[in-house]
């Protein structure tokens, strides 16, 4: 399968924070959810992919091209939604159309205005008069109206109500339907990713600690809830992390079927991404 995005050994050092050998591979036609707590390195990674930060080591390839050497070609095929970074707020959606048609070769005004109508966005009101949710929808409409092959989205659904979130998720799903397009998105709203992501990549403290398909994570991984006595009988090799709560132990395991065969513990549940995040970050080994 052809890869649309490849990040190899990306390292970037800041005072008090470091991205360490970040590796990401996103195949064509797939959606990758990028998760991690605040300050884990999600936005820094996205900024490096988009060439917003320069002084890093490692290789980043998009559509098989180097992100620094073939910048223009790459940017023509990318749509980006970044947290709070957009057009100056005195401009209107109409102004954005006027500007973008002279920036992108493939800018599709018809499609852009169709999205504005679908999202019930006004054409002539300044961005500053729009609500946070409307503004986000405008950012998304702007990002996809030049028929990009890759969407890079940093928290695209934050600030949206459940109905709007649903609309946006439907839009993302229809975006990848032709199997030529891909989406790389970071989000705190892990339930959204459980619905749409094909791959989940988890970053913690500047390190990628997990990158799997959604099926592997949500079908194979599990959470065992047991007593202290039961926990003490479990071999350390058979779990990833555990968290001790007031009445029970919560244990993250890699394969529910294998675990079930080996141990006589009844409560082995499927895991949600939220539980996975909490156990990976707050858990112990």
């Amino acid at each position, binding site marked *: 399968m052809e890869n649309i995005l490849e990040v190899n050994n990306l390292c970037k050092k800041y005072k008090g924070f470091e991205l360490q050998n970040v590796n990401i591979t996103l195949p064509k036609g797939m959606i990758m959810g990028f998760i991690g707590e605040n300050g884990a390195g999600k936005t820094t990674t996205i900024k490096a992919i988009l*060439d*917003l930060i320069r002084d890093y080591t490692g290789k980043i390839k998009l559509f098989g091209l180097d992100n620094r050497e073939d*910048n*223009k070609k790459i940017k023509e095929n990318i749509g980006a939604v970044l947290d709070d970074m957009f057009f*100056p*707020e005195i*401009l209107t959606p109409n*102004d954005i159309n006027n*500007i973008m048609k002279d*920036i992108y070769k493939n800018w599709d005004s018809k499609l852009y205005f169709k999205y504005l109508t679908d999202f019930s966005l006004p054409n002539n009101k300044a961005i500053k008069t729009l609500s946070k949710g409307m503004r986000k929808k405008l950012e998304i409409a702007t990002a996809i109206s030049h028929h990009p092959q890759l969407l890079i989205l940093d928290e695209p659904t934050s600030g949206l109500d459940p109905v709007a979130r649903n609309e946006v998720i439907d839009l993302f799903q229809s975006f990848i339907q032709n199997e030529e397009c891909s989406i790389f998105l970071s989000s705190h709203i892990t339930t959204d990713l459980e619905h749409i992501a094909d791959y989940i990549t988890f970053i913690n403290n500047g390190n990628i600690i997990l990158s799997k398909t959604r099926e592997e994570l949500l079908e194979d991984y599990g959470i065992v809830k047991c007593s202290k006595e039961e926990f003490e009988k479990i071999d350390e090799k058979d779990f990833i992390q555990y968290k001790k709560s007031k009445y029970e132990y919560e244990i993250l395991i890699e394969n529910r079927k294998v675990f079930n065969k080996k141990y006589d513990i009844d409560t082995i549940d499927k895991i949600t991404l939220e539980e996975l995040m909490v156990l990976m970050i707050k858990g112990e080994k």
Partner: protein
Amino acid sequence: MLGFIKKDLLMIKSNIKILAILLLIYIVMAFQGQMDLSFLLPFMSVMIMMSTFSYDTFNKWDAYAITLPNGRKNSVRGKYIATIILIIVTTIIITALSFTIFYAKTKIIDFENIIGTILGSLFATILLQSFMYPAMYKFGPEKARIGIFVVVFGVAIIGGFVTKYVDLSPMIKMLDSIGTYWMIVFPVTMILMLYISYKVSQRIYFKKEI
């Protein structure tokens, strides 16, 4: 690249009502002899472009622009070309107004005096903007604005001391000799200043981490 120029021009257009009101007030003041219109050129161009920088920073446009095709290069270029367009338009308006007001008051047209004054204020405008833009890109509008004021006041104070205690007659003689070629020297210097400023800004923006 045209899109980046349009972006700044559309931002200026968004504030057109306020600018028209300001212009009207200045015209009335100029008619009453309370203000020289030549002052309007640097004031309006610098103020308008400074506000575009402030909006850009507030909405993190600089970061967004880099996600667009050729964003690093064209964002800076667009800003400078929009500035040149703005300067040309304001110069035409102010020149026309200056001639009209002068003629209405004196019933004569003093071509050399008016053009000389306009060219002087144009030079001041471009000088200020040539220093201002790299500072804006490097430090952001807040710090750059303070820096520019400090530099302008510093130059004024140092200039005051120099003219008081140093004999400037040789330099004045030299300027007088250049003065005969001012129609060539001034425009060439202005273009050179803007070009150097553009190159410095582009270098800053090219290396910028956001």
